[in-house]
């Protein structure tokens, strides 16, 4: 099995991708496109306990552990949030619990998307990152 890229490497890939965009339209079109391409979560996962409630949009998140790595699946009813989710999954899914717990996800700031994590956005993204780390912590504790 090939080792997946490290969190840092994937973050750099995304930063490089985003550096190609000349304006906000290209950037958001890309995110919207990613959002549309993210496979929808099966309805069975869209249950109350998987909901991360924002004030306006809803995010669903499920996680599983396989061979020491954590895999995430997520969905949202808002497409821009979904695009950002897809980036987070690209970075974090398939990583080890320790790496997930340690990362600061600097790429979000570097691609100019920090505003979407502000508390006021109320879109559930910040809570989603927290929840991803909680899963990592939980799996880590169980494993050790």
């Amino acid at each position, binding site marked *: 099995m090939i080792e997946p890229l490290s969190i840092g490497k994937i973050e750099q890939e995304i930063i490089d991708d985003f550096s190609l965009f000349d304006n906000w339209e290209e950037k*958001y079109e890309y995110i919207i496109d990613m959002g549309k391409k993210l496979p929808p979560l099966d309805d069975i996962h869209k249950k109350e306990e998987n909901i991360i409630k924002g004030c306006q949009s809803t995010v669903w998140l499920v996680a599983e552990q396989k061979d020491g790595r954590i895999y995430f699946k997520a969905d949202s009813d808002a497409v*821009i949030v979904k695009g950002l989710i897809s980036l987070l999954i690209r970075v974090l899914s398939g990583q080890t619990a320790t790496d997930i717990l340690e990362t600061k996800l600097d790429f979000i700031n570097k691609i100019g998307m920090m505003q*979407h994590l502000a508390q006021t956005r109320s879109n559930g993204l910040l809570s989603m990152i927290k929840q991803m780390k909680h899963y990592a912590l939980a799996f880590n504790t169980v494993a050790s």
Partner: protein
Amino acid sequence: MEAVKEKIQAYNVTALRNKFPVLNVKVNRHPLVYLDNAATTQKPESVIKALESYYKNYNANIHRGIHHLAEKATVAFEETRTEVQKFLNAAHREEIILTKGTTESINLVASSWGRKNLKENDEVIISTMEHHSNIVPWQLICEEKKAKLKVIPISDEGELDLEAFRSLLSPKTKMVSVVHVSNSLGTINPVEEIIEMAHAAGAVVLIDGAQSTAHLKIDVARMNCDFFALSAHKVYGPTGVGVLYGKKEILEEMPPYQGGGEMIGEVKFEKTTYNELPYKFEAGTPNIAGVIAFREALFFLNANNHTLIHEHEQRLLEYATKKISSVDGIRLIGTAKSKIGVISFLLNGAHPQDVGVLLDQQGIAVRTGHHCTQPLMTRLGIPGTVRASLAMYNTHEEIDLLTEALLKAKKMLL
């Protein structure tokens, strides 16, 4: 047509805009188009100056000091009360209670009036289009007193069903608390009729004027409401200041809301007596700077011809409604016959939040979501809306920009 043109000329929106410093800022490299006035309006220079001047020149606590600054601050503070009295056409200045805002004003009535007057099986009537601030305080007191909360239904267009209201009224009805203008839909409710019907049934009426005060002429004497609540920050004034108007004879019978400084007559451990109106309801040090600056907001409103403002806003509403609904896939939410400048809408196939984010990228400030009216959204079967809300300084050009931005957002999302 000539007459209309003349009026448009008489309304100098550019001169007006120049009085609001924030309207010159750029957002995401675009000139700001501020269409979130139902959340809070911008402040004219005179209000900002008054805030600064208080802190720079006569900052002092009020009603207690004997020194020069305290005297000056107290006078300025009390002048606002007089100005509010005139503005609302209240009979007495002690009928004006200065609060933190509409939310506190309603909580004050629910808590104080409700504690004294509600008992088991009494009924409080609100409506489907209430802001959470006019729902939750009543739920709290009704639960405590085992009273019942009844809700006036609305039509799909967003108008109150007055026939249903009539059938809800009974000798059990003790309070009717309804919104003057809906923050989510813009509907202007026929409050005078509602008040008359409620009074005939022996009930007391509170009008939530948070959204109406900046746009309609308010005359509490003519309206004959028992309570009227408003927030200064939605009327071009500072945040953290509000008003509760109440009829003197009702306020006098009400127990204090909060205990503390200012509201007391004499404190003894055996028994405390309370101050007279309005101080009985004003415990603690208030937002002195904000209250003083609020007077400037009222001056500002009075200095502008109310009829011209209203006509300007109505013309804009009509224009915006036409422009926005001309975009394919737009569904207007709230199409009452009588409205202020609130245009709530949905874009088919797009989440309101996505539309809001893309409008923001283009410098356009709107609000998205349920606007603190979740039961209304549930009734309409929608998760929320995109809401553009107008004020006196908005322009036809800004509506054009909104429409263009909306078309762009649509192209990107769908």
